[in-house]
């Protein structure tokens, strides 16, 4: 289990690196989508089918929006500049310093993270506390066979309400931002 997941994750990381370095924005988006679908596989492996369904649909919709954004606006421009700077960027000291600092940040974060999680439960040996009540006896309380839905809509229905509100907010926000004229 751990090994399969690790392999998927490594593929996701490689995909992510490719997405960040792709010259063409569209291919970057596609690889980003692939990483997203890799996440779906992880969810399925981790016994989270609800999440897998949501993630696959959300990823698709996000991809549609992103491609709609990128398709006829920037791809061309970026390609051109990317080819021009292809050789320059390799010896660009500023970019190199940026990368170097990022790597240092990454190493420090990784090291502290490693240090921080040493005494926590290792993978697969989770102990229940709050969700024990949700799992065993939760179904009797809510009447829902799908325990995630039970948690989502009953025990933590208030969270779900907040989540729906966020979508509502985002819809209103997008409508607000995509106005042509702001002031009369």
């Amino acid at each position, binding site marked *: 289990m751990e090994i399969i997941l690790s392999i998927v*994750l490594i593929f996701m990381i490689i995909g992510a690196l490719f997405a960040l370095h792709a010259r063409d924005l569209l291919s970057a988006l596609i690889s980003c989508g692939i990483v997203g679908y890799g996440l779906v596989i992880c969810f399925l492996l981790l016994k989270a089918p609800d999440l897998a369904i949501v993630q696959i649909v959300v990823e698709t919709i996000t991809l549609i929006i992103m491609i709609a954004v990128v398709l006829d606006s920037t791809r061309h421009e970026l390609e051109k500049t990317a080819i021009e700077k292809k050789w320059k960027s390799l010896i660009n000291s500023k970019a190199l310093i940026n990368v170097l600092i990022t790597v240092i940040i990454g190493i420090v974060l990784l090291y502290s993270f490693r240090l921080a999680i040493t005494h926590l439960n290792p993978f697969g*040996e989770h102990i229940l506390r709050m969700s024990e009540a949700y799992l065993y006896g939760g179904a009797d309380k809510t009447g829902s066979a799908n325990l995630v839905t039970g948690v989502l809509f009953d025990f933590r229905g208030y969270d779900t309400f907040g989540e729906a509100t966020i979508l509502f907010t985002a819809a209103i926000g997008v409508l607000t931002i995509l106005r042509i004229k702001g002031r009369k």
Partner: protein
Amino acid sequence: MTLFILCFVLFLVGLYGVLTRKNIIKIFIGLSFMEFSTFLFLVLIGYIEGGIAPIISKNITNPVYVDPLPQAMVLTAIVISLAANAMLLAIAVKIYKKYGTFDIRKISNLKG
């Protein structure tokens, strides 16, 4: 532990994208990787070895379920990130209209 470390590496890759890429879309992609890794992290926490998906079926006796709470949290978080991403893309579209570029070095009217 390896999985958590790998998951965190994905986070760092996203961070690397945010820190070094100059294109709005690339930054956006970097942010999504960070989101992915956080979601995965939460679900990894809740996994129990040998557990089954938290859906009750009458065929199994004495079932061990994986923790549904992180799943519920991630579900919420996915939708939240969808909302945030939609907003960010809307802004990106408008910015492209006004500035004519996705290069953040040129989108620096506000400074000082």
